[in-house]
């Protein structure tokens, strides 16, 4: 195992039966509790990703333009971006790129600053007030690093979830889309440097609840991390250097020695 392949998890939404094996298997493996919820008129529960729910089955009733009804299921969770905004903003290194190029999380390092929550274009990380830490899927890093599939993938009944080397999975996704035809599309390989979780969608991305059509690392994060962060050191350094030079060239300003000041003005 000297070279680790870059892994991609494929979610073929057209095969999913929304049995929620993945949702529970995730909790089982990661030892996350179940919390009390309410029935609010949908099968989707918890209503959204939560600190204890890293993989969530979304249920959506949809009627297409031809009047054909379809109950859409989408497993939501971390997309494991190559260009991961959360990793960019994480101050403590809790969020990091694993050798498999997925986005891991070292919870002991998390300081609960929630910067990743605001930065994530997919609205994935969740904060728990009790532990003051952020939680999200780490694609079962302790498993995949030992070539064992993530809990969700292993549990998947219809093989809607599969995992494998990046190129092969992307190829597989496109083959499936070609087979499905229509609006079917591959979601994930073309933005944020390519995600390590990709979808096969039956309809255009805009049809799906809570799925950004064109996710990007937010401009604010780029301004912040790529522009202002280096700038801050630069300007601070420049200021420090400036005063130093001023001191050694102009010297301090004291009464009675205007002459010296003149000298330094050259």
């Amino acid at each position, binding site marked *: 195992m000297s070279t680790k392949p870059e892994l991609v998890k494929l979610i073929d939404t057209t095969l999913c039966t929304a049995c929620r094996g993945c949702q529970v298997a995730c909790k089982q493996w990661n030892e996350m509790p179940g919390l009390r919820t309410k029935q609010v008129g949908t099968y989707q529960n918890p209503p959204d990703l939560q600190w204890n729910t890293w993989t969530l089955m979304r249920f959506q009733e949809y009627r297409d333009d031809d009047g054909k009804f379809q109950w859409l299921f989408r497993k939501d969770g971390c997309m494991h971006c190559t260009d991961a905004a959360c990793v960019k903003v994480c101050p403590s290194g809790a969020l990091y790129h694993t050798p498999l190029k997925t986005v891991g999380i070292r919870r002991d390092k998390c300081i609960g600053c929630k910067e990743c929550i605001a930065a994530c274009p997919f609205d994935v990380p969740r904060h728990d007030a009790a532990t003051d830490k952020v939680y999200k899927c780490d694609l079962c890093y302790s498993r995949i690093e030992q070539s064992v599939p993530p809990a969700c993938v292993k549990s998947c009944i219809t093989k809607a979830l599969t995992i494998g080397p990046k190129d092969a999975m992307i190829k597989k996704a496109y083959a499936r889309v070609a087979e499905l035809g229509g609006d079917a599309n591959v979601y994930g390989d073309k933005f944020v440097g390519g995600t390590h979780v990709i979808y096969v969608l039956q309809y255009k991305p805009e049809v799906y609840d809570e799925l950004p059509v064109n996710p990007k690392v937010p401009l604010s994060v780029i301004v912040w991390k790529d522009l202002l962060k280096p700038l*801050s050191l630069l300007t601070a350094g420049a200021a420090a250097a*400036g*005063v130093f030079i001023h001191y050694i060239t102009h010297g301090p300003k*004291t009464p009675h020695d205007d002459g010296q000041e003149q000298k330094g*003005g050259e």
Partner: protein
Amino acid sequence: MKKGYVQVTDSYERIIHWTMAISCLLLCLTGLGMMFQSFNFIGYLFGGLKNLKLVHNFTGLIFAVSLLMAIRMWWKEAGVFVFPEDMDWIRAAGGYLWHVDKVPETGKYNPGQKAFFLVVAVFGVIMIITGLIMWFPTALPVALVRWMYPLHVLGFVAIFTFFFVHLYLGTIGNPGSVQAMFSGWMDKKVLTMLHPKWVKEMEHEGKLVAWGEEKKSDAHGHSA
């Protein structure tokens, strides 16, 4: 203290200044610890990065209070430019950068000091607002929250940069001036050099408090 010294600040001013200065420094330090992973080691000073975050957040509150009080206190003196005198001073760069035969006279705060105050006031307020939102990021729409982070850093860039200049000019760049924020007394000569107009005003209004003036015993003298 010595003869020839005059009182330039009262203790209230000094307490606020130092509260703000220390909290700001601490914020810069802790902020740096979170801003750059290479500075994460600063966290060790606080028993971990998480404590560092807490120190940063709560120090922010102290800074916020002191900044607001400072603004209230100094706004009239340092927050408003007086033209055309200030413009003359700016054109001459206060005599710091090139030879100026006669530096335009300024009041208690020269435009450089005013600029620094304004930077601290404006960016400080930005820091407080953005900081609070960053502390509770889930309370507002994410599109808005996202811009708080670069704004916070922008504030840092400004304040941190000016900090070096302020440190220099308030200490070794202007020997004698640092006393203003420690003892509150300054050599009248230095003060007259730096803020001639203010000295005149105070003298004119009879507000100038000089060391041992009632006793009139000590002769003028220097202690270099």
